[in-house]
């Protein structure tokens, strides 16, 4: 059973086709990485899955309920505290006991001690954790993260992925986009490769390595990122 499914999704911006019939699905508790160069259509696909924009053709289904969306840049009110931000969105989500939801998210993000701090004073990593926690307030079956680790240092990144993996461990389907091929390989249980709006690959990280080696054997001895770039070139991107 899939938690979210996209079927032949097409999206155009004027003359340009940002997505060309992309199909894709993810099951409960899966951690899916969407990778690809700039302009590949990663953010467009996530925004269509999130319901922020609608496809020109094809469709999206999320049978198990709400889809949580965490934009690339933290969508937070920087002059409010951590707690005020969480409380506001819990209220807007219509929670019966918003205060309890806030406590739950503070526990989940490990930011209980910093609940009274103005968000602008938090590190990028902590802001991103609040950003994700707000995305989780709708209690989604599927959580979409648009390049969640951009701008974070390695320590912050490690803590973020630990947090995200814990979510997936609890059964939340997590789909994230990233430029970082090693991050996709390390944290993505499945990898979807997009380039110029086309879906080039959908499978595990190990399967992607094999595909890269077979299609770009001249780069097989080099690091995975270089081999991946060669693979894209072989596929005409």
């Amino acid at each position, binding site marked *: 059973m899939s938690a979210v499914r996209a079927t032949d999704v097409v999206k155009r911006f004027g003359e340009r086709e940002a997505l060309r019939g992309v199909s894709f699905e993810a099951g409960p508790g899966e951690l899916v990485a969407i990778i690809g160069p700039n302009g590949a259509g990663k953010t467009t696909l996530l925004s269509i899955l*999130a*319901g*922020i924009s609608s496809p020109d053709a094809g469709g999206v289904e999320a049978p198990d309920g709400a889809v949580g*969306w965490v*934009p690339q*840049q*933290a*969508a*937070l*009110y*920087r*002059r*409010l505290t951590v707690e*005020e931000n969480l409380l*506001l*969105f819990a*209220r*807007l*989500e*219509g929670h019966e006991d918003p205060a309890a939801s806030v406590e739950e998210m503070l526990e989940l993000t490990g930011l209980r001690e910093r609940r009274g701090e*103005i968000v602008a004073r938090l590190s990028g990593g902590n802001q991103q954790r609040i950003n994700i926690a*707000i995305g989780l307030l709708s209690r989604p079956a599927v959580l979409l993260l648009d390049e969640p680790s951009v701008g974070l240092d390695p320590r912050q990144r490690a803590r973020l992925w630990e947090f995200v993996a814990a979510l997936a461990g609890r059964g939340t389907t997590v789909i994230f986009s990233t430029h970082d091929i090693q991050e996709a390989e390390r944290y993505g249980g499945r990898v979807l490769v997009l380039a110029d709006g086309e879906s080039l690959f959908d499978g595990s990280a190990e399967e992607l390595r094999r595909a890269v080696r077979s299609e770009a054997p001249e780069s097989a001895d080099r690091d995975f990122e270089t081999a991946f770039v060669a693979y894209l070139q072989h596929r005409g991107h």
Partner: protein
Amino acid sequence: MGGVRWLLLKDLQILRRSPLQAALLVAYPILIAVLVGFAISRGPEDPRVAFVNEVPPNTRINVGGAELPKANVKEQICKRVECVFVDNRDQALEKVESGDVLAALVLPADLVNKINSLSTLTPGVPEVEILVNEENALKAELVDDRITTLLAEANLRIARRIGKEGGRYLGLIVNGGRFEVLGESIPILGLQASARILETVTPALPPRLRPSLEEVTEFASQARDNLDVAKPLIDRLAQPIAVDKVVVGGESPPLEIFAIAVAATLTLAFVVVLLVAGSLALEREENAFPRLTRGLVSESGLLVEKVLLGIVAGLLVTLLMLLGMKLFVPLDLGRVGLWLVAIAVAAAALGAAGAALGAAAREVRAVSLLAFMVTLPIAFLSLVPSGAVGAGLFDAIRFLTALFPFKPALEAIQAALDASGPGIGGPLLHLAVLFLAYAVIARLALRRFATV
């Protein structure tokens, strides 16, 4: 509407977290109220003018050998300006050059003699001297206006006095009476009595002399009639053009009410437009807009929230300002209900305009600049009175200012403050139409709000 309530609370929290912004919102209306209040209650200061009177004491204006009563020209002048009495022209010159006085008025020693010569065969030209330091154009204009007006008034008083004396002499010639000269009282027969005597003696004369005497009697009679006509003519010479002011329209409120309404509307416009436009643009800058409109709040709901924020802030700030003004100018607190209606409706229309600007400009800095660039000139244009510019230009200004809520807001607040002025219904209707129009524009502009 629940979402709107929480967003409004959030915006007020953000406002509270921005001490500079919050302080400005409170301090600005208080400062404006105090400044306008002082300006209205104190009135303009009289300009300081040095006054040199070189005319010998006890010299009086003389008409036909008789001295006129004092015209009190000096007292009249010193009622209108602050006279700084100095002894001579040099002292006056020094005070003007140092900027201690705006100008100096010098009455030369021969002034009265020259005025007296006007009724002789060799009339002179009476002159006064004005010393001015025209260091800037505004000052020069002010001096010209004030001094010219004062001298015109002095001329008028002297002319009236001369006219009155002339009329008295004419009355003496026509009606007869006693004329005081060199301490002696001389009886004057008068044309009326002369004609009567001639008519009485005519029948006693020989018939051949009667036609000649009848001619003299006729002349005396005509002279009396014509001199009677001459008297009012002499009176009119002093002030040939009388002013009859007829107000044909445009009921104007008292000046202080107009000034308060302008200050209040200006404050309301800036606070509401900047706050609504800025806070809408902030939703985009904080990346919250797509998250909010993804099922949490509708785009229309977000607009309603921003306009409500404008109304709340506008009511608070403008009410605070009007209460501050009340310390200086008596405002009728019995009309406070109308104040609230006028401010709320004006704030709603201004808020909708602010939302349209915010949705169109999208970035906080651009929005602030745009809000100033739109509000300030519209406010100035709204204050241009008819007749101050050409008819075509005024029509264009009237059309332009009718498209922005500032002018109807000013009219509504003015009507709310002043019971004797025009009604509040028209401006409120105008504001309601503008509110709807700007709400539609803002809603359309929000469609491309989240895009880069």
